């Protein structure tokens, strides 16, 4: 099973196995990783599962849809070119070993 590494704003690093098709957000919640909040549960109504994707993986991500684009304009922490909502990153083989960094704040 592919894994994903989550790095907190203070540098705390957690690597977990992530089943194909599931999202980076839901695996963070199920594994008790702080730093991803997901108040709306992945309904794309909030921007509290914001992550910075390691640049090495940006080419493998799906394009940012219109809805995600709007929500990324409303994150609590600075939006950067590699900002994504982790509820919109679905695990696929090309993303094995993905590294995401979590912002200092989600709200």
């Amino acid at each position, binding site marked *: 099973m592919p894994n994903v590494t989550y790095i907190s704003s203070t540098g705390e690093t957690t690597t977990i196995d992530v089943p194909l098709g599931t999202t980076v957000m839901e695996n963070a*919640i199920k594994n*008790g990783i702080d730093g991803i909040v997901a108040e*709306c549960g992945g309904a794309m109504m909030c921007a509290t599962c914001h992550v910075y994707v390691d640049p090495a993986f940006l080419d493998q991500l799906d394009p940012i849809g219109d809805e995600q684009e709007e929500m990324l304009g*409303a994150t609590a922490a600075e939006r950067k070119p590699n900002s994504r909502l982790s509820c919109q990153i679905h695990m696929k083989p090309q993303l094995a070993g993905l590294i995401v960094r979590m912002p200092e704040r989600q*709200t």
Partner: protein
Amino acid sequence: MQPGVVIVGGGQAGLEAAAALRTLGYDGTVTLICEEAHAPYQRPPLSKDFLTGKQEADGVFLRALAYYEKHRIDLILGDRVTEINRGGRLVHLAGGGTVAYEQLILAVGSRNRSLPVPGAKHALYLRSLDEAVTLRQRLAEARHGVVVIGGGFIGLEVAAAARGAGKPVTVVEAAPRLMARAVSPPLSDFFLDVHRGQGAEVLLNTAVAEVRPDCVTLTGGRRIDADLVVAGIGVVPNVELAREAGLDVSDGITVDEFLRTSDPDIFAIGDCSHHPRARLESVQNAVDQAKCVARAVMGNPAPYRDVPWFWTDQYEIRFQMAGLSGGHEQTVLRGSIENRKFSVFYFKQGRLLAVDSVNRFGDHIAARKMLAAGTALTPEQASDETVDLKKLAATQSVG
């Protein structure tokens, strides 16, 4: 152990209050008392992706169990507060125990309104995870027909899930239009078309006389075969515990703008809380009131002023609401109802009150920002598609 904060109710409001206290650095004890045997979970998917089978039960929990341990949140599951002893500053549990508090947060939620007709026991309701598991199973087994009593959000989401699964569906609504309590007539009409277009029979101005194991009879005498009857006719806030403790209650537990009840050491948040502005039943209200109450507990109170927002998914329609449209004097349409991409803007004395959006995500987000920032928007600008709402809206977090 020093008494700290005790939170009664393990819905999203209760959980988010516990989480917000820890985020703000609260160092005392935090006890979260949940009546259900489950750790806190999300309710919105229960009538959406969980019901349609796109999401499983293990995906609805708001936090992993390890979270509660790590953040020293004492989770009491499957027990219920039977009494608040304000003099002694403690709560009594049905299981026989007591928990002392310094500050008490009531996040006791609401319960489904019961169907006031003979045979009501044959109808299912949807609020809890256990109810959702039962409903999902019964929906899969239904062959002859599904009758949904109540054309509000829950009823229509259930109807959409049932039609999506190919079941014959009849929606019975007592009012002259759908979702009448929450949306304006053009939106009620739009959703009526959507549901009828999907093959659901929708009966307005229609009352149920009786529910039987194999059918529903209407007051007009018609009988509708059904092997599944679901009632979604609104909720009643749980005020009894507060009332018996002598706190002020009306439609909900009365609180001030800081979410304090008539006892300064007791707060009420979420569905059960009647704030001076309104009593709301939504994720937004649960989460934002939880953050607000945490600030008050930390001795840094700020009035609750967050912009209300809400969403419902029915078939391929995403409907999003921002603000409160009650008391509006003027409505303005932006976009095309025919193309199923439009927003209705609500104004009072030229001031924007609320925006309801159908498949217009950008309008919704812009509306949340404008309402939060108090951005001036004229009805003419709202209806003019060449006006860029995103640019008008001040850049700020809506998280």
